[in-house]
């Protein structure tokens, strides 16, 4: 077993009292698995990812990676953020090398490994370019290469394609599957996009909101080699429908409480 999370709870204290973001989360990821966590906004899915990354500490519960407790951030859990987080003063090559540099890897090996991963994400010819010269999709591909270069046990992704347009998103989803097949790494992605989750994942956890709890788990029995054409398969569509029903049912039960309704109204107003 690679990643194991048990009885995880996370509360935030605010001026108006304590807010429970996550309650009794139990999940696991096997080596080489592709996991998606789907949930509406307010389900605490970003918090969950940040806890795994070690950027925040749980209120209670355990997080283990290969039997070792997670006590802080580390290069064994690579992360790709929704916002662009490339270092703007470095070339793509230097960006991808940076994690290795932090670990004190010598410059020759750094160069070789960065070149390898830049090649995997299809940007070898842009090695000397700077981030500001790239499109959003290309930036996220570099961020993926940078996270993979330190060869993490798990790759964590926080809605990595959320800021991209629909066409680029589809390309990036296919691309991510290909990277996964080529590198055999464990990937845990969070998203609110059910179609994206079904397309990418082997297993999906559905998160309910306020507080975030795991509502159910779906095993996606689709071939590992997927292209966008798979979306036309009835099996794909039935997975999407089942998960969407589940999420809709969850939001119905929560809409009786006043808070999610107001926050939804606010979101619509923007």
């Amino acid at each position, binding site marked *: 077993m690679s990643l194991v999370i048990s009885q995880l709870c996370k509360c935030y204290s605010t001026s108006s009292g304590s807010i429970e973001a996550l309650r009794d989360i139990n999940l696991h990821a096997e080596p080489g698995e592709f996991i998606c966590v789907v949930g509406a906004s307010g389900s605490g899915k970003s918090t969950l990812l940040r806890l795994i*990354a*070690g*950027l925040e500490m749980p209120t209670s519960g355990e997080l283990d990676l290969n039997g070792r407790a997670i006590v802080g*951030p*580390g*290069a064994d*859990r*690579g*992360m790709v*953020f929704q*916002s662009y*987080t490339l*270092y*703007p*003063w470095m070339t793509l090559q230097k960006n991808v090398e*940076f*994690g290795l*540099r*932090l*670990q004190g890897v010598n410059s020759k090996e750094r160069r070789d490994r960065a070149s390898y991963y830049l090649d995997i994400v299809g940007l070898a010819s842009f090695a000397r370019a*700077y*981030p*500001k010269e790239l499109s959003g999709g290309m930036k996220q591909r570099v*961020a993926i290469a*940078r*996270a993979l270069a*330190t060869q993490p046990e798990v790759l*964590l992704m926080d809605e990595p394609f959320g800021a991209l347009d629909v066409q680029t998103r589809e390309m990036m989803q296919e691309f991510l599957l290909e990277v996964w097949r080529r590198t055999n790494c464990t990937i845990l992605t969070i998203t609110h996009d059910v179609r994206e989750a079904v397309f990418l994942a082997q297993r999906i956890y559905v998160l309910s909101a306020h507080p975030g709890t795991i509502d159910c788990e779906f095993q996606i029995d689709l071939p590992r080699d997927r292209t966008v054409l798979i979306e036309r398969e009835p099996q794909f569509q039935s997975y999407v429908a089942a998960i969407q029903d589940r999420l809709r049912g969850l939001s119905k039960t929560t809409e009786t409480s006043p808070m999610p309704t107001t926050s939804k109204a606010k979101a619509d107003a923007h």
Partner: protein
Amino acid sequence: MSPTPPALSKLQARQRDRVFWRLAEDIPQPLTWKLMVISAVVPLLLWWLLASSGWISDKFLPSPPDVLAAMGDLWERGLLVQDTRASIVRVTLGFVLAAVVATPIGILMAAFASIRALLEPAIGILRYMPAPAFVPLLIIYLGIDEAPKIALIFIGTVFFNTLMIMDAGKFVPKALIEATYTLGGSRWQILRQVIWPYIIPNVLDIFRVNMAASWNLVVVAELIAASEGLGKRIELARKFLNTDEIFACLIVLGLIGFSIDMSFRVLIRKTCAWSLDS
């Protein structure tokens, strides 16, 4: 229903007028140059006209040729080089000292809320004490040599530099710092290899802005006690009512400031191209 030619030209005229008043947008390069030349030439012409009109005695308002002659005279007597060098050395020493102290403290204040809480109130108060008010103290403590002059420039710029660098450091995106943590970076590595390079262009720009203050202060210091320096030259010229020399020194000060400003801009453009929009 095609537009008639006069209406079209009217439209074009309006479009042309609008170029000048484009809000938060670039204007064509030729127009930029034209306006910049106007900015330098018009005040010079006004000065010349006023000086040659005879309304004001040339003891009070020397004409541009007089000033140029005075400048040539100062040059020939070797005073211009000697005074300019003296002032530049003081400014450089005082400012470099202030920059060396302010940069690490500013970064630490930006990075650690604890350091900020520890230093911000004290620096906030010190910054509002006018540096020239320290001159008597500095003379008592350090005498009348170079030390009090350099110390004055240091005091007058170190606090502004520190607080402005702190502000620049606060704008480093949190996600960039967190991304570095997930790559295995330590706090020290993040300070040295993420926060510092991220704010270098801002720091250079802060130096550019605060350099002006150190030129104010060097003149203040030299007016009070010095044997050489542009401020001293101005003070001596006052005694003999040599307004043409005063004007000459003021112009030299303006030109030095302007060229330092431009050098910083060029330096930022050359070394930090990544931080510029285009």
